[in-house]
């Protein structure tokens, strides 16, 4: 038992570096730091010596050279004549794209499944338990392969949509599900569409402002404004009105069969869909467990006490249960988002051109610049992961329980 309270500082003896808990921790930290520095110095000098002996040098000039390969799904301009750097950018954006999409859908799946797992309905509860157990217990790599195989093997080829009596037809005349991917209508931005979009963004901000104002009004004067309908109206009406004022500048471009493939609209390639969907359902199963744990962590006494005070069930959820449950849900949610980002590097399996497939795959093989490519890759994933952690931790700190 360490029960001494502030022994006099004057009597410091070297033996206290080990025997006194106040100094012992410092002693150990100094030793650990020294060992770490020595280890890094040793490995670094070793690496430099070996590279010199092999006649290799570290140089990032290859990034400026033409990449010389094609990429099928790019969000930014790219041809085989573009530089390796541009190819890396394509990869980075593709990684961010699939990670972002998967984070959003995994959260949606997870919240729904997690909440339904607590349902009073036996069948719903068991179905959700089945979903969680099946999907989180099979490696995500296998899910990517399964979904990709199903898509490429079971979906009709674009040519099946041709002819007077086609084997397949487009859904609602605007969606085509093919073995090369899904084709959906895409927006066409006419002049003035920026103003419409700006109006929409302003409306979204307006909804938050309105809700804040309504809460403030309730706190200040005790007057409670209606929430739902004004929110919907603020969200939609200005945008719709602006859309017509500007002469309907935003149109839809429908995919249509031209030759052997669909043209127009937006193409979402089969690799992206397989990766996106697999990451979503796999990670969604983990998130479902977090959500369930979070809600269960709030004791029943909390909602009973709130109900006994006369709060309606919706308010009990918003004011009492959710604020407490989120504190349990957020930290593991961060690691699930990080997992999605890192697992997205499995893209290479189905030929989705993420950063691992471009910079860490083809570029690396063609230029032989293994150390440079791998260092850049590591840096990228590190930056992204730390970025996600930081944002979520800021949120977490803002809401965490202040106790003691």
């Amino acid at each position: 038992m360490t029960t001494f309270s502030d022994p006099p500082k004057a009597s410091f003896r070297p033996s206290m570096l080990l025997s006194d808990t106040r100094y012992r921790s410092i002693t150990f930290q100094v030793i650990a730091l020294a060992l770490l520095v020595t280890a890094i110095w040793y490995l670094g000098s070793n690496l430099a010596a070996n590279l010199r002996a092999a006649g290799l040098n570290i140089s990032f000039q290859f990034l400026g050279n033409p990449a010389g390969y094609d990429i099928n799904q790019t969000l930014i301009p790219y041809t085989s004549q573009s530089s390796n750097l541009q190819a890396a950018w394509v990869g980075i954006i593709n990684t961010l794209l699939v990670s972002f999409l998967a984070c959003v859908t995994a959260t949606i799946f997870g919240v729904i499944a997690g909440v339904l797992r607590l349902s009073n309905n036996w069948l719903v509860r068991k179905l959700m338990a089945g979903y969680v157990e099946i999907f989180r217990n099979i490696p995500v790599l296998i899910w990517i392969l399964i979904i990709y195989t199903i898509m490429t093997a079971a979906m009709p080829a674009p040519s099946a949509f041709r002819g007077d009596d086609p084997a397949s037809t487009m859904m609602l005349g605007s969606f085509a599900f093919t073995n090369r991917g899904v084709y959906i209508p895409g927006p066409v931005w006419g002049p003035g569409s920026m103003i419409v979009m700006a109006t929409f963004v302003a409306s979204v901000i307006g909804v938050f402002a309105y809700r804040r104002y309504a809460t403030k009004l309730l706190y200040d004067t005790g007057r409670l404004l209606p929430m739902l309908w004004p929110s919907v109206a603020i969200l939609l009406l200005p945008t719709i009105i602006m859309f017509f004022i500007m002469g309907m500048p935003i149109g839809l471009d429908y995919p249509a069969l031209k030759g052997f493939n669909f043209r127009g609209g937006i193409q979402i390639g089969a690799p992206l869909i397989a990766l996106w969907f697999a990451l979503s359902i796999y990670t969604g199963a983990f998130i479902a467990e977090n959500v369930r744990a979070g809600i269960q962590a709030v004791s029943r006494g909390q909602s009973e006490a709130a109900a006994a005070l006369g709060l309606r069930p919706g308010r009990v959820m918003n004011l009492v249960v959710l604020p407490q449950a989120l504190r349990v849900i957020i930290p593991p949610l961060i690691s699930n988002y990080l997992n999605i980002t890192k697992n997205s590097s499995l893209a290479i399996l189905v030929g989705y051109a993420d950063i691992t497939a471009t910079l860490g795959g083809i570029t690396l093989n063609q230029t032989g610049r293994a150390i440079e490519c791998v260092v850049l890759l590591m840096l990228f994933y590190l930056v992204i992961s730390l970025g996600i952690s930081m944002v979520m931790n800021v949120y977490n700190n803002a809401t965490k329980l202040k106790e003691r």
Partner: protein
Amino acid sequence: MAETAQMKVSDEVAIRIDNMNKWYGAFHVLRDIDLTVHRGERIVICGPSGSGKSTLIRCINALEEHQKGSIEVDGTLLSSDLKNIDKIRSEVGMCFQHFNLFPHLTILENCTLAPIWVRKTPKKEAEETAMHFLEKVKIPDQANKYPGQLSGGQQQRVAIARSLCMRPRIMLFDEPTSALDPEMIKEVLDTMIELAEEGMTMLCVTHEMGFARQVANRVIFMDEGQIVEQNEPEAFFNNPQSPRTQLFLSQILGH
């Protein structure tokens, strides 16, 4: 002692429970409960564990649903009609064994949450009321702390203040002191005694027999979901009628 027991009880009926029954699945928890509580009455309910004491008082503010018979609070019939439930809950305060303060809100926010969102009281006014009641339970200086920073006895007093902020006409207590250390029991009981002296209608599940003698004007003994016996405290403790009451009293007073 004597004068507190004389506190006036009006003829007005606060709670009328008529032939009420409740089942958990096949388990018959409450059987044919008949109970009339007048305004200003202070009732202590005791009985062995599992006899249905908690279930009975939780039925009064609809935390549990009863299946047969009727419960009427201040003339409002408890039914599945949400309006009636809201009305009853806003008139009935409740304190729990484990306090159930909201850990993410300060003491003051705990006390103002329901007045603001249910009673639509402006925050400033709600805070004044809250400070008034926190002073009453003698912890105004803790108003900006969080529940986790308070002792059990302080938390239970906050819970009482939180209920009082809704200005209830009836208070329900479910073993408010049984999760507390002995030193803290007294501070909570003192608060409850003060409340009783002001004429609050109280239903209290407790095994604090000293409290029952001092404050209650009726003690109810429950066993196996039934009200077995009820009487004034003196008569109840000195001259219990049914053998089950005698056994129970000998067990809790015996040592």
